[in-house]
């Protein structure tokens, strides 16, 4: 028997910092529970996010050093030994005592975790003592906090070259020196530098979309059109493609990979045969093409089964030797036309949106990879054979929906840098990182331009200076908007120094020390 309750993230953090600790909760536990047991904490009520080990349950009394869930109506004390971040388990996997399943947790509930499967515990690695000490030493000595990755590299180097203490200190000194040199000064116009650094190479890019050369040609937007697509944050790229990597044991076998590819590629009736409308006897006739059917691994029965999915009206399906005849129950030209259209676009199998799937050797020649035209990340990840960690799509919005905003940020960076590199242009990644940050900082992917970031600026004058001047000024006038003159564009308009570089410095008098 497990306990489940809903809690706030602040309390979880408190428990994490103080465990083992007594935790006071506002519900009574009346049933006998075998100890030690696990408790599950949910944040939203729909899935369990944390697991705690409970070693003692007793009535509430005020003691020193306990953590309280709320300020009043506390009833029980739970001794929590440890708390673990687990990959979310849906609440619906917990059973009530009477055998039914739980739906939501509003406050507190008993439950039994049905399938004990593997519970994935997320681990947070803490800095080692050595790393911590080095970081503190550097901060004390140079007044600067180096990023963790640099600390790691320094210590790796120390081990690799077995440096003496004095030598290592020199390395650290040099690292700090270089780090400081590369740092950007406050009020440096990084955005403008980034825009220019991406814009100038952009002028050298191809304006044309062109085809991949190769056995299996696929059309992919490249060059400037693709770059524009990325910064515009279009909901669908003009040529969505995916690279689907498969799990070990399958990916080395071409036949098995082709099998999966067939499962992914969506097949319509029109792909495996002809559809003829016969007006004379009000029927639609499907003439399957044997060769095409074999290629796609579709049988006649599959087509008949697929037809049963048609939700038009009563149909009679007659199977003849090399054709399938569908008859309408009542004659109507309109309905006959509609039926033809529906039959043509009927999906027999596969994943929606993926029109082609091609199997090719990967570049390092070690495995077979499925390349698809069309993208549907969510459904592809649901397939058992797919290795989700290495599967990718070029549809950034889809990534944001399925995997989250940080993944989308990385996708923007990767897509942009790849597009530039394909054209032989080398742009520093930090410029692109800035663009990706600006596009994603508020939690949704937003375009750069009138509909996205620029249209959101606080200042009226800055917005008016960008595009559609009259409209912005008019609405600002009607609403009585105020302009704080904090940005660059508005200060240029009113003729003040801008808040960048030297313009952002305020001088004050420094009296002489006596």
């Amino acid at each position, binding site marked *: 028997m497990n306990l489940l309750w809903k809690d706030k993230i602040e309390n979880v953090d408190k428990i994490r910092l103080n465990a083992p600790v007594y935790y006071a909760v506002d519900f009574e536990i009346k049933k006998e529970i075998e100890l030690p047991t696990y408790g599950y904490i949910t944040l939203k009520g729909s899935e369990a996010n944390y697991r705690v080990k409970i070693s003692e349950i007793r009535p509430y009394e005020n003691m020193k050093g306990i953590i309280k869930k709320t300020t009043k109506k506390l009833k029980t004390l739970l001794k929590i030994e440890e708390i673990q971040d687990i990959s979310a388990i849906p609440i619906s996997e917990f059973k009530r005592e009477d055998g039914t399943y739980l739906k939501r947790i509003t406050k507190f509930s008993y439950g039994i975790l049905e399938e004990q499967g593997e519970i994935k515990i997320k681990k947070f690695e803490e800095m080692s003592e050595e790393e911590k000490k080095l970081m503190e030493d550097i901060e004390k000595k140079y007044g600067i906090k180096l990023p963790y990755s640099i600390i790691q590299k320094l210590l790796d180097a120390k081990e690799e070259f077995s440096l003496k203490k004095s030598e290592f200190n020199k390395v650290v000194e040099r690292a700090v020196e270089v780090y400081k040199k590369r740092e950007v*000064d*406050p*009020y*440096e116009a990084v955005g403008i530098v980034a825009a220019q650094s991406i814009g100038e190479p952009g002028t050298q890019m191809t304006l044309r979309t062109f085809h991949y050369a190769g056995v299996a040609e696929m059309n992919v937007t490249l060059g400037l059109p693709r770059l524009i697509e990325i910064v515009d944050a279009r909901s669908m790229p003009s040529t969505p493609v995916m690279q689907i990597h498969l799990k070990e044991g399958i990916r080395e076998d071409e036949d098995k990979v082709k099998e999966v590819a067939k499962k992914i590629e969506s097949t319509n009736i029109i792909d495996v045969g002809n559809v003829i409308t016969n007006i004379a006897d009000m029927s639609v006739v499907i003439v399957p093409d044997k060769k095409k059917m074999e290629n796609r691994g579709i049988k006649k029965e599959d087509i008949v089964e697929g037809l049963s999915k048609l939700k038009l009206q009563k149909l009679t399906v007659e199977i003849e030797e090399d054709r399938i005849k569908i008859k309408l129950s009542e004659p109507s030209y309109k309905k006959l036309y509609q039926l033809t259209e529906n039959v043509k676009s009927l999906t027999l199998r596969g994943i929606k949106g993926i029109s082609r799937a091609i199997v090719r050797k990967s570049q390092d020649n070690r495995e077979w990879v499925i390349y698809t035209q069309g993208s549907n990340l969510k459904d592809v990840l649901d397939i058992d054979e797919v290795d989700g960690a290495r599967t990718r799509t070029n549809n950034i919005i889809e990534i944001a929906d399925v995997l989250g905003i940080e993944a989308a940020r990385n996708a923007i960076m990767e897509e942009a840098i790849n597009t530039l590199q394909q054209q032989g242009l080398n742009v520093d990644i930090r410029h692109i990182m800035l663009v990706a940050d600006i596009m994603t900082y508020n939690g949704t992917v937003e375009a750069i331009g009138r509909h996205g970031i620029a249209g959101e600026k606080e200042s009226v004058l800055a917005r008016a200076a960008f595009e559609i001047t009259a409209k912005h000024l008019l609405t600002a006038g009607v609403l009585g908007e105020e302009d704080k003159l904090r940005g660059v564009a508005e200060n240029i308009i009113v003729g003040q120094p801008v808040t960048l*570089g*030297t313009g*952002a*410095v*305020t*001088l*004050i*008098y*420094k*009296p*002489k020390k006596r």
Partner: protein
Amino acid sequence: MEYTRFEKARIIGARALQISMGAPVLIHLPEDIVDPLDIAMYEFEKGVIPITVKRAK
């Protein structure tokens, strides 16, 4: 306090303007320094300019 390059430029610029308009020089100068901007830079290096910056928190 270490100054950024913008702050340095601003301080030297302000001081050079004062000197060019006749403000007394605060330190004994080598003979070859005559230009107000050079004087301001010399003063900055020696740390005698009574100007500093106010930084946003």
